[in-house]
């Protein structure tokens, strides 16, 4: 494994008494695509801001590209690309000027950044909108422009904070495709998300974060293997009968979970569980056998109740 470009050890950020990030440790290798997965308020964005050298840690150690962000903010930031959760494009500038001006902030000469801006517009599929106002772009276009902007300085690490939140399915897929290309070119990606499909699409490895601490770590496949079964059988008996049936089938599969509207049976073989149910004379209104997903892992680790 190549040397890590990000190393966090017991990283902690406290606002007054509240610990937004509470002693998390992880390593990201060069060229790796690493995800921070967690519900809202889990401390993902705060972690990203510390890695991005725009927030100082309360305690613990952090090394980004071999430098300590507390002392080498500008040096680290000059080698990072940042895509924040909310777009902060320069609304007073046109699309292409957004890239040029941002590149100039990094001290890149005008001649060089002009060429780069055209390449990036093409990459972001925005070449025909070069002269548009930022306000006239769709949500997906703004996001792509933000990503293009994050690439003006040829960053060694790209930080993406919930890159596709709020986008429609088409826009998300276009964005994933662009990010996947960057990954193929060897850019290290650190991203946060609460979309499981996004994590499975983009992350080599991820940590599940909740309430500022790491709940689990591994590749998507490893996490599913460790924290869930291979398949899940979902059966519905109607809201009234679910609880009654659940008592009768206790012990089916590896584990069962009763939700208000359905029962989940975790098992290596979902079809076989379904056969057992019908043989026992229980015929569900609907049944579905599916592969276990990161969502199952996520919900198991972070709980199903709404955390605000």
């Amino acid at each position, binding site marked *: 494994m190549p040397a890590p470009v990000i190393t966090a050890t017991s990283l902690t950020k406290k606002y007054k008494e509240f610990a937004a990030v509470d002693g998390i440790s992880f390593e990201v290798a060069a060229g790796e695509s690493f995800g921070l997965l967690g519900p809202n308020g889990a401390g993902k964005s705060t972690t990203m801001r510390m890695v991005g050298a*725009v927030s100082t840690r309360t305690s613990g150690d952090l090394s980004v590209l071999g430098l300590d962000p507390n002392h080498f903010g*500008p040096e680290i930031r000059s080698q990072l690309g940042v895509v924040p959760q909310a777009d902060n494009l320069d609304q*007073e500038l046109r699309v292409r000027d957004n890239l040029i001006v941002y590149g100039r902030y990094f001290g890149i000469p005008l001649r060089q950044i002009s060429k780069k801006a055209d390449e990036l517009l093409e990459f972001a599929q925005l070449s025909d909108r070069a002269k548009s106002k930022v306000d006239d772009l769709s949500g997906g276009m703004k996001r792509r422009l933000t990503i293009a902007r994050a690439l003006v300085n040829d960053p060694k690490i790209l930080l993406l904070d919930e890159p596709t939140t709020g986008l429609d399915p088409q826009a998300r897929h276009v964005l994933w495709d662009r990010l996947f290309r960057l990954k193929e070119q060897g850019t290290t990606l650190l991203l946060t998300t609460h979309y499981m499909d996004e994590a499975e699409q983009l992350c080599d490895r991820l940590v599940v974060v909740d309430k500022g601490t790491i709940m689990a770590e591994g590749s998507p496949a490893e996490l599913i293997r460790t924290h869930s079964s291979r398949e899940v059988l979902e059966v519905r008996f109607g809201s009234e009968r679910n609880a009654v049936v659940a008592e009768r089938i206790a012990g089916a599969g590896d584990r069962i979970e009763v939700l208000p509207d359905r029962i989940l049976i975790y098992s290596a073989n979902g079809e076989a569980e379904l056969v057992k149910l019908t043989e026992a004379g229980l015929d569900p209104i609907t049944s579905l056998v599916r592969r276990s997903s990161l969502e199952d892992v996520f919900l198991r680790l972070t709980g199903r109740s709404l955390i605000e």
Partner: protein
Amino acid sequence: MTIAPTQPERVAPARSWFLGALYAGNARTVVSRGILATRSTNYLVVLSGFFEPIFYLVSLGFGLNALVGPVHTSTGQLVPYAAFIAPALLAVSAMNGAIYDSTWNVFFKMNYSKLYQGMLSTSLGPLDVALGEISLALLRGGAYAIGFMIVMQVLGLNLAWTAIFALPAVLLIAFGFGSLGMAVTSYLKTFQQMDWINFVLLPMFLFSATFYPITVYPAAIQWVVQALPLWHGVELVRGLTTGDLSVAMLGHVAYYLVMVIVGVIFTTTRLKALFLD
């Protein structure tokens, strides 16, 4: 397609032993961003601010001139009324330009457009942003003042050759107000608080020996007026345009230098606290 890395000309952020992570020596890119943004969006708004002091000059300077007659400056020189208020209005126009940019515009960028958040996630430091934005306010104040100087020259209100030095003087005044304006704005959170700025500026504009000599006030009030920045600007510029130089002018210059330094320090500290917490 792929994006070819264009490594060679990457400029490592400058690092000074003194300012460290606060300054990357790249404030000029913040200034050029501001000029580009002004050019593409709101130059008409910028233009409108220039006329306010001109209207005062025309209405009061010429309207009241007939009633008031010549006036004594602080050094005892007797000058026509229009030539008395014109340098004061020149200082005011520099102040206005700098204040517009460094208060309302900065307030919007700080709280709504997230511009500084974006800037500070690059290799820029808070001092780059502070200096860049204050310089922008200075440029606007300077532009207003130069326009006003031309009007004064045309109307024959520059009484001495030393008036040429009023140009660097108004730039210093704009720098002072821009820097203090941005520092104050960085502490304000709501529109209601922003209104306090006007509440302070209007009386300062009216009472800083702008339209009549400061000697009309009792001593106690004079001290208050002399503690405020505009009075120093008015006296400095008036001395230069009327050709009546005095040692006190060095004091006025020093007042503005302190104002610039305090403003820049507070703005930088505040930007750091807000965006690099």
